[in-house]
């Protein structure tokens, strides 16, 4: 267990930074304090970038990142092959993201909370047109089913292969291909069909 106040000795030394993923998983499982810091240092950029691109909001991505690592911390003892620690973290991230997307859909359905708009200010996009395009893009992504949305982002934004996505999401390749085809055709159609005022003109005038 980690102490409540993290001491300065938690700064990970160079030798620990060279530890393999397997050693790191074993150390985290054994409750060694340095391993938590090193796990974050090693995998947080990957997880936070994925979360940011999936959700479109840096602030939400921060929260999700912490949920992911808390899950990794709790579940690492169930890891049978410590050498595949990176895949384990990635799979945890995808599960947490999928749960979050389901939760958002549910909240939206129950009207507890409207889907948050893209917070792209923090990511330094000064160009109005780009901000607008990103906002529209994420508004349309909200309409996809969580699973399709994740597969779409992994393929089109993260540039992963179908085989990699299948492995990461624990699905068959044909399932991934179906999901991807569905998401891509819908997104393409929606993007092409969406002169941004169409709704407003139809409904408002």
């Amino acid at each position, binding site marked *: *267990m980690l102490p409540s106040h993290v001491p300065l000795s938690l700064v990970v030394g160079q030798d620990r930074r060279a530890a393999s993923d397997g050693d790191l998983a074993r150390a985290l499982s054994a409750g060694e304090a340095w391993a938590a*810091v090193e796990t974050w240092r090693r995998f*947080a950029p990957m997880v936070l970038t994925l979360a940011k691109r999936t959700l479109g909001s840096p602030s939400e991505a*921060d929260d999700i990142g912490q949920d992911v690592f808390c899950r990794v911390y709790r579940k690492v003892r169930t890891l049978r092959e410590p050498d595949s620690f990176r895949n384990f973290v990635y799979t945890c991230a995808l599960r947490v993201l999928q749960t979050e997307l389901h939760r958002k859909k549910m909240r939206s359905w129950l009207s507890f909370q409207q889907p948050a708009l893209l917070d792209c200010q923090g990511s*330094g996009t000064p160009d*109005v047109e780009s901000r607008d395009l990103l906002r529209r*893009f994420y508004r349309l992504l909200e309409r996809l089913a969580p699973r399709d949305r994740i597969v779409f982002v992994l393929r089109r934004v993260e540039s992963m292969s179908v085989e990699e996505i299948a492995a990461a999401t624990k699905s068959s390749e044909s399932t991934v291909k179906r999901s991807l085809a569905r998401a891509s055709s819908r997104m393409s159609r929606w993007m092409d069909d969406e002169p941004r*005022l169409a709704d407003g*003109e139809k409904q408002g005038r």
Partner: protein
Amino acid sequence: MRTTIGEPKESPALTEATDLCRDTLGPPTPAELDRGLDGFLARISPNKTRPRRFVRWSLAGAAVAVCTLVALQVASVYGKRWSAGEPPTLAYQIDGGSVLEGGYLRESGHAGMNVVFNEGSRLTLAPGTRSRLQVVDRDGAHVAIERGRGSFQVAHKSNRRWQVDVGPFLVTVTGTVFTVSWDPVSEEFDLRLREGSVVVSGPVSAGEIALRAGQRLVANLAKVQTVITEETPEQASSESPSAPPAPAVTAPGLQPPAPGPAPTPVASTVAKLAGDHQWGRKLARGQWDRILQDANRIGVEATLSEASSEDLFALANAARYRHRSDLARSALLAERRRFPGSTRSLEAIYLLGRVEEARETGTAQAIAWYDEYLTRAPTGPLVGEALGRKMTLTDKLEGPARARSLAEEYLRRFPKGNYAGSARELLAP
């Protein structure tokens, strides 16, 4: 390669959006990672753990509570729908103009336009204002002002979301009355808030600035100035775009470092004040003088050499907003020197160009900073701005002949960018 055999071909707009998403939403900054690590460690500390039985019972109790809430919420939602039907769609009517494809508002005369919404909100556009309605739907409205002035009166009664793009700034609104203008030539943003509150975000604020009733925010990107002033009701109700800003809020400015050896503060003091990310939050709240006072108390030299990357950046911006270009330059140089390769250090290089531009003799040096940014961050988020500024300054310093190649490059890369108009003017025969 974006498609493989068996995958459908995606639309060009979608390709553009996914590329933009990849370029814009990049890896987290070191400061974000540090913040996240703090949160993660705090969450897995023993203080946060509970006996399993307690957790199980808590979960059971929470589940019951959630079910009850869900039932109530569903009953409330359907109850409302059954009794009152769907919430009304936002509809509007335009006087003095018409709406074109893409949402552009075209003035039919020279008296400006009025856009009246059925919920009671109203938008008045001054003559010559170039604007468009980006989104008008059940959830609210998104309006863009590309040039000119608009007065908004947003109804308090609805829960709709109103957002206004004003040049490179974004104004998020609930119920409020305000006037906002943007001049792309002088790069001046001016917002006068008469009622309610708004949140402004944009390229100079490094976050968000919340304004309350009676405040006025003037941001001039070319002069690297941002000023918030308090206005009397009479001033606030005046909508003259040429009205000069009122005197700035009293700013007991930070004194420049005294010549000779600077006092060396205790390191822990610096760590406490500079390492706890308070300055970023203070900056977002507009508490620029507080940041300068803190830095003054700690000691400028000590702050520059020991503050975190985020705090240095916040200090630089606070100094810029208070026209302390000497301190802003020092903080930005420290950011660049101490955190090479970080996103903030690249932003610092761009802002150094902005700081130099504010000096009468700093044009050449500003171009050099923009060059450095373009070299070190060829696909960075500020490339369009850096290239546009470089083009403008080259035109000013060396004449249009030298600036034309930059204008061509700008239009090729950013045909709809903020400087596209200037670039086209340069290339016009």
